[in-house]
């Protein structure tokens, strides 16, 4: 009878293996999810590319965009990606305070980016160049806005993550989630680089 029950040592070992497998499965799953998000943005980029010259008498990208302004936005987001990496590094060394600090900096930079973007949107809308104006502007607001919506979700996640780490410390669960959050954040950075190039640079330079 007793030889039919596995001994405690073996069970313990198997449990550890199972736990680390589960964590890597979750991160892999998150990668697959990011691929779906990638297709989502790819579709929006395709739509933007089709509609970018359909201004219907309204303003074109070159008339609307101010490259220095977008550069500041870009720098805010890129540096937030760097600080997000620092947060993950501190978390891996189990430095709770440092992790929270870097997460806070990342949050502030992300919020700055979002604020700049909303201000820009607001300016266009009050100038009468909202999404009603033309196919080009519809696709501009939707593509850039979808990225902004993702950033908003990322910020919300970061806030929840901060509370979680503050209250419960840096356990394996917190680390796993932080890893996924940083994947998400870097992914949004990459998407922004494409937006910066395709929407703003090409738009401003009449490519």
């Amino acid at each position, binding site marked *: 009878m007793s030889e039919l029950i596995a001994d405690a040592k073996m069970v313990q070992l198997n449990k550890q293996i199972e736990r680390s497998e589960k964590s890597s499965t979750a991160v892999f799953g998150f990668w697959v999810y990011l691929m*779906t998000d990638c297709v989502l943005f790819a579709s929006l980029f395709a739509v933007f590319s089709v509609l970018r010259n359909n201004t219907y008498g309204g303003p074109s990208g070159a008339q609307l965009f101010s490259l220095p302004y977008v550069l500041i936005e870009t720098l805010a987001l890129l540096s937030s990606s760097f600080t997000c990496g620092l947060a993950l590094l501190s978390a891996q060394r189990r430095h709770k305070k440092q992790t929270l600090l870097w997460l806070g900096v990342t949050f502030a930079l992300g919020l700055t980016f979002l604020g700049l973007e909303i201000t820009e949107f607001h300016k266009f809308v009050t100038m009468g160049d909202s999404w009603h104006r033309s196919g080009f502007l*519809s696709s501009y607001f939707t593509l850039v806005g979808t990225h902004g919506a993702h950033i908003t979700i990322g910020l919300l996640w970061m806030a929840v993550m901060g509370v979680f780490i503050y209250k419960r410390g840096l356990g394996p669960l917190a680390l796993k989630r932080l890893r996924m959050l940083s994947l998400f954040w870097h992914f949004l950075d990459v998407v922004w680089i494409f937006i910066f190039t395709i929407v703003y640079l090409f738009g401003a330079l009449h490519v």
Partner: protein
Amino acid sequence: MISTFASFLLGKLSLNQLPNNPITAGGAIILVLIPLAAVIFISVTRRWKWLYREWLTTQDPKKIGKMYIIVAVLMGLRGLSDVILIRLQQALSVGHAHGIISASMFQQVVSAHGTIMIFFVAMGLMFGVINMIVPLQIGARDVAFPFLNATSFWLFVAGMVLINVSLVIGDFAATGWLAYPPLSELKYSPTVGVDYWIWSLEIAGVGSLLAGVNFIVTILKKRVKGMKMMLMPLFSWSVLGSMFLVVFAFPILTVTLTLLAFDRTFGMHFFTAGHGGNMMMYVNLIWAWGHPEVYILVLPAFGVYSEVVATYARKKLFGYTSMVWAIWAIVILSFIVWLHHFFTMGAGSDVNAFFGIMTMIIAVPTGVKLFNWLFTLYRGKINMKTPVLWFIAFVVVFTIGGMAGVIMAVPPLDFQLHNSLFLIAHFHMMIVSGVLFGYFAAITYWFPKFFGFKLNERLGRYAFWSWLIGFLLAFVPLYILGFMGATRRLDHYSASLGWQPLFIAAGVGVVFIICGVVLQFMQLGVSIWQRNSNRAGRDPWDGRTLEWSLPTPPPSFNFARLPIVTKRDSFWYDKQAQFTDSRPYEPITIPKNSPLSMVIACGAFFLGFAFVWHIWWLAVVGLLVVIVTIIWRSMDEHTEYELDADEVMRIDRALTPKEAGL
């Protein structure tokens, strides 16, 4: 003041939106009565607690799979009642007669039929079978993300409820099942019909997308040790292919629907006729999802046929490796044929030629699969059960439909056949034989594993023949009508065309199909009635794959001891070697039940409903419910419990028959 408040509270919703003609009113009353009857029945029999604990909050993919199939069958009946209306209308609305429903109503019925059959019947059957079988076949105790899996299911239900609500309040899209603009734009479809279509598919689509992610990870990461990729059963391979398509195609659907919703709700100009919109972009986008969707549905059914053929022929599957490569060839090619749905767009001869050739090429891997199945049957000791009959019908019908497809792949011919009933006949032959018959075979084949008794064979055969005769009778006339120039979604035609006899023949075909459906329900009823004389053990068909090694019905954790896999069809060879497992038992971690998946789906439902009727406070509430529930769930670190080894042994012993030697 009061009217502003009312419009804030209710958006565009008002009592005028209730049904105002006898047919919709009848449908609406039935749709209200069925859930009401269910609620009364559950209350009278005091089953709420049981329902809540065993089903509504379950995380067990086997139970979730059963619920998918129940929903799909109910929706199948709804889709079938649409068919009855369509056939009656087309048989009667000739010359001076105008049939039983108005033209706009007819368009709604046709759109609802297509949408429901694809999204809520075919997808439901597919995810149901996948949920029930894939973990068992790959030797897993669960899917990779059980909570996410339950959420996918409940989102599917939320979408289903929303599309049915459209029958009770408001109306449904009268734009065909893919709602092409500019017809589907606000200017030409000012009612809420198209919005219902958009949000119902959006919600169900997100559910499918998440399920796609889940099953990719499940198959790649949760296979039992020893089961290398090339040792995997063909059904699981097909599901992997199909889920890759889901992951790459469904985001395109999400985007397309969202953009159409933005056009309609926020006055954007993606697909409008003016202001720089581009309506052909919609058609491209929707088919960039839509064509892979066909293969999403058909690949798992191909997988079912692979299992059925090998099992009932009592041979190993012919050409395993080529089958796997055929799946991946189909996966890749299915993304580069979408333009054949609209050769008439005017993209130029080079573009049309490319897509025409690609379309013909995709018939090649499909042909490889057909021949492999036939070679598997060749010289097998075939056990001629109903699943094999469904397979043979599939071969015949799919080949006829496929040939029609190759004809339409030639652009000049397509210019004649585009949007005609010839096309309708073609894709019904592909989808009904390639999807529906496949899942009928799957249900008959795997039924004993989950319920412990077989389905009645005789009634199954009767149902099969009614279906096959009815199906051919319903669709062969449509090929002919298509050649004669009858277009799709035709609500009225001139008597001088001489089409009426053919439409009546098609209607008679539907009568046979209805008989088939009735026989299928009788088959289920009789099988339950006579279950004691129909008992099936673990392995009623002398199966080859791991699910047949499990007790019937399998325990919630599937495998008390994870199986040992060393080759393809390992279980088959274990049986011959009379292998008995005497390894020790270990504790098993099991996910706890959770009602939160349902709560998330409720939030999504209200979000969708609010967008349909422009009730903005409700949209905010719905969104908040979704977000807060997700955060709430993420704070819970105790989502699993452990079954200790003694308990596992006790359950396993209780389920193991005495003769197994323990």
